[in-house]
């Protein structure tokens, strides 16, 4: 292998990497540059006025946060349990191969299809109405494949020697999983789950049909209420507002808040990950 060719490939890969970082950097810079001047305490702590042209976005922040909490509460236990079943209990058969194929297929389904499913199943058939409950369940369905696939991978990465040792000491299968498989794979499970939850935070299509309110300047009282949500609010300001140009700074500020929210989630995940990595090294 000639060193010249090595160098070319090396720089090519480097350039591609820089290009990606620059695009992301530009997007973040653009949002911060235009959004920061409009961002203030009032903006995040007040109700919107005049159809969103003035005032803050408190209901949208609360709406998105409550959707996230609900989505996590539904999807995390379901996803982890499914992953444990697939990785630890299920025999490798044609049936489980089909389940895996279905999960991977579901991961690629466009989000608007989940929105339509949520509308048909949760909103209409189960009669939850356009509500936080319906929205959370729809978002949970959407991110379940991501959580299951990444959790299963994290569980499989735990060396089988730990399982054998635990079983050989007389632990039952569940004791073994609970004490010597799950704790070691938590950092991987959390990382994968946060990826899914970050996606849920930013999606518009699934909540459009199941929960999001166009303009609702008050906070929700129950899980059967509609709420405003940051991505949908952003969409409305950008495309549906009569004076879209005038509210441009508000759009940027809303985008910035959404960005910070997702960033905060990721940071939280990284800290949890570091914590478990330190606790269980192998």
């Amino acid at each position: 292998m000639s060193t010249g060719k090595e160098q070319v490939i090396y720089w090519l890969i480097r350039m591609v990497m820089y290009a990606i970082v620059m695009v992301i950097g530009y997007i973040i810079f653009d949002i911060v540059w235009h959004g920061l001047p409009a961002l203030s305490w009032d903006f995040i702590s007040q109700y919107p006025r005049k159809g969103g042209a003035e005032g803050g976005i408190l209901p949208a922040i609360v709406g998105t946060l409550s959707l996230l909490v609900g989505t996590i509460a539904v999807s995390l236990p379901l996803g982890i349990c499914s992953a444990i079943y697939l990785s630890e209990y299920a025999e490798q058969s044609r049936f489980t191969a089909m389940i895996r194929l279905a999960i991977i297929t579901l991961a690629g389904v466009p989000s608007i299809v989940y929105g339509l499913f949520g509308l048909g199943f949760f909103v209409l058939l189960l009669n939850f109405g356009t509500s936080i409950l319906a929205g959370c369940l729809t978002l949970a369905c959407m991110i379940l494949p991501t959580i299951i696939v990444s959790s299963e991978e994290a569980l499989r990465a735990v060396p089988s020697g730990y399982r054998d040792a635990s079983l050989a000491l007389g632990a039952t299968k569940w004791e073994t999983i609970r004490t010597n498989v799950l704790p070691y794979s938590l950092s991987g499970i959390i990382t994968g789950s946060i990826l899914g939850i970050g996606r849920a935070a930013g999606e518009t299509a699934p909540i459009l049909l199941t929960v999001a309110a166009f303009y609702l300047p008050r906070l929700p009282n129950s899980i059967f209420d509609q709420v405003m949500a940051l991505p949908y609010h952003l969409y409305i300001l950008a495309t549906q507002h009569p004076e879209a140009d005038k509210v441009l700074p508000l759009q940027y500020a809303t985008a910035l808040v959404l960005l910070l929210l997702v960033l905060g989630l990721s940071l939280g995940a990284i800290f949890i990950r570091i914590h478990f990595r330190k606790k269980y090294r192998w």
Partner: protein
Amino acid sequence: MVETSLFPADTDHVITTRQVNFFYGAVQALFDITMDIPGRRVTAFIGPSGCGKSTFLRIFNRMNDTIAGTRLEGEVLINGEDIYQKSNNVVHLRRKVGMVFQKSNPFPKSIFDNVAYGPRIHGIKDKQQLAGIVEQSLMRSALWDEVKDRLETNALGLSGGQQQRLCIARALAVGPEILLMDEPASALDPKSTIRIEDLIGELRNDYTIVIVTHNMQQAARISDYTAFFYEGRLVEFNATKKIFTKPREKQTEDYITGRFG
């Protein structure tokens, strides 16, 4: 093949197998193995790779159950009890029959938590009692002096040989009668290997030890009885001295003199 006179009159046959056949799916791995393993002695299983000696060892604590598609025919008795009866509780069995694996596999937890793991899952919560068990087990496995000042540190910080002795301590902590060892020293340096062998020598009076080994010198050094396996069959089982000086079977002789395997 095994005459009762093989063992001294005062030995109990702790493990007894009758016409054991074992299958991985459609592939038969063990053929018609009938064998008595004496109590409070060291019995070594030798034979070339793939001869079924590890599979046979893992029958005694039903570890093969964890592999999908395996099937056993015949009888396996431990202290007279058929361990493959449906009514037999595998958790109880594994408390009685401990196992040490080829690759040392301490949990990525503290040294203390590793040894206390077994007693804890069997319901011991009292801290003093646990501390006592941990100390005793580590003493028995000749590791106590090296680790007594750092019981709370991660077990993965120990050397390979120390890790394997920790695994032995962890197995002893649940109070087994039988100790199965699957090539416990094959991944260790010579010095650590000697320590493990010395340890087996110290444990031989209190435990029934069955050890699988690739190393024939090791079998000769540490075992009272040796069984030679070849292609899933038990070829010869006799006192170690006899096997290594006057083997009855030609195959055994060829193997121990290094003509194959």
